[in-house]
């Protein structure tokens, strides 16, 4: 894997000049297009602002993501789930036995003790505040995953010990269940009742946060904690 290109020989001068000219020309054309086209069209801001009182949230970004265009977000959660499933074969089936004492630097351990609770708190805040100001499930999930990476680096726990499958699937399950349930009430898939929209969005976002954090954390863990056997482990030859 990772074959090197034998590129010590530089490409011919003519090719390089053509490439440079093409890049300069495209850049100038792009700048000219931006300058010529003038101010951007107003878009759908007015329509979103008009419909905002019926969305259940006050932040227009969250209103678009989880109410007006929630179908897109549902599919995004599904795509993330598929990505996580695709990396599951790389995952360790069992947590590694810590036979030797893991040397954790005291500075890192102390820092993690301070940082991880703060990061978890901030993640919860971002999830909650998404209804009123910038924030939301993706940001909160990414923060939680960052806290997990920190913990795993400090030797706090092995990512292989996580109950991966329930965590990965909960976002998609809750989102689909809510979508079907409100469909039964209002008659349209993903059409929330106005009175309950805020609570439903928070429920969906909370479940999505868990799944997003688990997905990102597993993407990292599957790389950082490779399966012991197989061509990629390389445990027999220690790195020089």
């Amino acid at each position, binding site marked *: 894997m*990772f074959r*090197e*290109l034998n590129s010590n020989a530089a490409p011919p001068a003519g090719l390089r000049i053509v490439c440079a000219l093409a890049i300069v020309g495209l850049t100038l054309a792009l700048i000219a297009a931006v300058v010529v086209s003038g101010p951007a069209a107003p878009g759908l801001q007015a329509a979103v602002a008009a419909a905002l009182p019926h969305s259940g949230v006050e932040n227009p*970004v969250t209103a678009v993501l989880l109410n007006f265009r929630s179908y897109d977000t549902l599919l995004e959660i599904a795509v993330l789930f598929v990505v996580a499933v695709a990396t599951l074969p790389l995952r360790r089936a069992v947590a590694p036995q810590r036979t030797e004492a893991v040397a954790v630097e005291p500075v890192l351990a102390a820092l993690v003790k301070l940082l991880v609770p703060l990061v978890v708190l901030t993640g919860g805040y971002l999830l909650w505040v998404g209804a009123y100001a910038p924030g939301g499930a*993706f940001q909160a999930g990414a923060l939680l*995953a960052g806290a997990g990476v920190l913990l795993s680096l400090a030797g706090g726990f092995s990512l292989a010990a996580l109950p991966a499958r329930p965590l990965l699937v909960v976002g998609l399950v809750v989102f689909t269940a809510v979508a079907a349930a409100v469909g039964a009430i209002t008659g349209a898939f993903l059409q929330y009742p106005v009175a309950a929209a805020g609570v439903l969005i928070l429920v969906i976002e909370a479940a999505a946060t868990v799944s997003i954090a688990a997905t990102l954390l597993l993407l990292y863990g599957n790389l*950082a904690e490779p399966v012991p056997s197989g061509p990629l482990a390389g*445990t027999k030859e220690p790195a020089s």
Partner: protein
Amino acid sequence: MPIDMTIDFTLGAGVLVLAWLSLSTTNLFKAIVLFISLGLLVTITWARLGAVDVAIAEAAIGAGLTGALLLAAWRRLRTVPGNTRRKAGDNHVS
């Protein structure tokens, strides 16, 4: 020049320079560190543009988790048997 424009031009130039450096360096570890730095500058740029949602996501995913993923991949590349003859941080790829 007003202070706002000075900050914006410095940010824009910094993003371009860091992007070029992270692509052109032949040292994988340096490239990863430069990429993470690029992510942090892009985060400030998004915040300056008023897109705070994107800025938070870029800081957490673009700079933080992608950086951790790249570093994990880099560590694993070093331990692949065919690559052990090289020294750490000396993986020339270009």
